């Protein structure tokens, strides 16, 4: 229900800048941004487009959208996309825009309350969960129209069984980000395996750097570290089964993940639990840290131009040669239809538009820290980083959505977050960490399987 923010859920929202800080529950119109994005401020201030109240008033030629794109950049990108839709079809879209954290926090009460016809959401388990509650409209017919534009990976991530429930707009990879110039100056090499990786960390320490930035004040960033270590050590299938509750958390495999993490932790920024991911990103920007495992949205913290162009990444190296490094987290964001839209036809038209290459191009043009989901997206305007990200995703053997999108939301937010934070504070007590996780799993995964 209601209220507030906290984390997990929130996201990694690809989009813009903001994700979850300590606490935000509200919506300032995205905007507020001025300081950072002065030029765009105008986009945020216009409420005419967003005054929609709840759900209401969508007439024959109109539909409505509940959006979490309250931050400056994604909001501007979404506005541009919706404007193009209206221009093309004559259908007006009333948008109720909230900041992402508030939106996600309230998703349960939002969907049961007076939701708009369509809303922004995330692919994977996190979408199916709400479909299973009966809140989501079936858009399989929309997929008949747009399906050719997406790979099977996207199709599956957007489906609940045979039913298509989401139209993907974009995704973005999690990887080790770094500054090219820093690597050049110090002669650092991209590590391919554990040995090289540890050697690189030690070399960075010798140069007076924090090898790996980390800020887990919001709880979710450390999930990225868990995901990648688990996928590198135990493989993608194990990871997904673990997320689904089919495997226990107090097994030797999971314990090994934490043991590995504990050995690598000294290479991370100290005291991560009190630091926001933005502060951690700043340490990368300011050349205090050498690398940072995060989603591509880290680029939002890099001023456009020289700094942003200096940003690069490499895939997290393999830790076990029998497992390799073919699995990554690359969360997909998209749009869904609610169960009882006022104007289903217009809503589906909107979703079909969002599933077009054109919509993705328009969105990405304004919010370039993502990769368009559509096969035919125009990549000619992509930055080097985007091209590389598209390639990483394209070549990945397996793609996970991210811990809190791949498992039960209650488990992710009330068990995993506090336990990972405890672990970061006290990495020696792995017994307690795995037993807390297992206890939470037993409490929450009962009755379903």
């Amino acid at each position, binding site marked *: 229900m209601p209220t507030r923010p906290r984390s997990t859920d929130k996201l990694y929202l690809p989009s813009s800048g903001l994700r979850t800080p300590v606490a935000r529950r509200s919506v300032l119109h995205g905007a*507020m941004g001025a300081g950072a994005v002065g030029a765009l401020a105008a986009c945020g201030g216009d409420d005419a487009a967003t005054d929609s109240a709840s759900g209401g008033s969508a007439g024959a030629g109109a539909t409505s959208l509940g959006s979490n794109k309250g931050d400056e950049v994604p909001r501007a990108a979404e506005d541009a996309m919706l404007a193009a839709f209206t221009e093309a079809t004559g259908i007006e879209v009333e948008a109720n825009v909230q900041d992402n954290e508030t939106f996600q926090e309230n998703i349960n009460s939002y969907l049961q309350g007076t939701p708009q016809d369509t809303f922004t959401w995330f692919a994977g388990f996190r979408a199916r969960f709400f479909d299973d509650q009966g809140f989501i409209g079936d858009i399989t017919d929309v997929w008949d129209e747009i399906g050719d534009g997406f790979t099977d990976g996207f199709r599956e991530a957007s489906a609940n069984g045979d039913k298509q429930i989401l139209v993907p707009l974009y995704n973005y990879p999690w990887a080790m980000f770094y500054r090219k110039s820093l690597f050049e100056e110090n002669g650092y090499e991209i590590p391919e395996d554990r040995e090289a990786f540890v050697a690189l960390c030690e070399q960075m320490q010798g140069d007076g750097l924090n090898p790996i930035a980390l800020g887990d004040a919001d709880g979710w960033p450390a999930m990225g570290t868990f995901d990648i270590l688990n996928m590198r050590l135990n493989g993608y299938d194990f990871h997904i089964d673990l997320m689904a509750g089919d495997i226990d958390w107090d097994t030797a495999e999971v314990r090994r993940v934490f043991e590995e993490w504990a050995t690598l932790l000294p290479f991370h920024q100290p005291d991560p639990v009190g630091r926001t991911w933005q502060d951690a990103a700043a340490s990368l920007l300011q050349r205090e840290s050498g690398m940072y495992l995060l989603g591509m949205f880290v680029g939002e913290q890099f001023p456009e131009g020289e700094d942003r162009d200096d940003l690069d990444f490499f895939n997290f190296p393999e830790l076990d040669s029998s497992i390799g490094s073919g699995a990554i987290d690359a969360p997909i964001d998209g749009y869904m239809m609610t169960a009882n839209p006022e104007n289903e036809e217009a809503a589906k038209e909107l979703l079909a538009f969002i599933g077009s290459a054109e919509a993705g191009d328009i969105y990405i043009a304004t919010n370039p820290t993502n990769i368009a989901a559509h096969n035919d997206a125009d990549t000619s305007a992509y930055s080097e980083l985007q091209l590389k990200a598209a390639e990483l995703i394209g070549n990945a053997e397996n793609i996970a959505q991210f811990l809190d999108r791949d498992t039960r939301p209650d488990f992710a937010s009330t068990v995993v977050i506090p336990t990972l934070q405890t672990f970061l504070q006290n990495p020696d007590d792995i017994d307690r960490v795995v037993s807390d996780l297992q206890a939470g799993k037993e409490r929450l995964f009962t009755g379903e399987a």
Partner: protein
Amino acid sequence: MSTSTDLDRSSGTTGDSGTGRRGGAGQRPRRRVTPGRVVLYVALVVVSLAWLFPVLWAVMTSFRSYEFTAVNGYVSWGGFTLDNYVDAWTGGNFARYFLNTLIITVPAVLATLALASMAAFVLARFSWKLNIAMLIFFTAANLLPQQALLVPLYRFYLYVGLYDTYWAVIITHIAFQMGFCTFVLSNYMKTLPKELGEAAFVDGAGVWRQYWQVVLPLCRPPLAALATLQVTWVYNDFFWAVAFLSTGDKFPVTSALQNLRGQFFIDYNLVSAGSVIVAIPTLVVFFALQRHFVSGLTLGANKG
């Protein structure tokens, strides 16, 4: 209250007791400068500055450019600018959120005081079997944890169609705050001399007139104090608004501020400016009405 015997109506409102004493000329008797007093003053100044410091630090931060402090750190001098305020105000859509706050706060506070003063009047001025039970009923309600009401209330508002309307937030504030106001007002009313009411009865006034024309006007001090308190409480609440509103554009400013923090978390300067903007109305209300506050909260009567 044990010391009160009567209440001079004018003393409560003009404050010749509490606040007047402070300002009254010629009333400061025989204070000499002694070492003890010097220590006292020094201690008070030190404590006061310590208390003010965090706020002043935020104010100072809000006037400095991010570019400057990012390079020089916050423990530095220079980089002063008004840009943060301009940016926060223009980007933050504050006008809209302040309006929302007004829409919620004004009816909530007025209705709370109106209903609470009626209930307090009955409970304080009439002996009635259920008196104490009712007082407990009201007061205890105010002491319960907000979170405990959340889920059923959300369902209730959804069911009756008030979810995502200002009314849901307003009604909740009224009900939740009524306990405290009833308690304070009934305590105050008990100190009013019984004869007042009886005189009114002799004049043939009904209970409503007794309440409206006799008792309520005498309650101006606690009403002023409570109004001040309630305005700040309702203004500062972010809980109910976020719980019962799902349209972003309806949020009051305190809830909206959180977004600012989120978005520019790293730009402390800009967030500081937004915080100062949000803090100003409560500070103004508070300091403007400060004397009501102290004299009015005096639960017992003043003896001038």
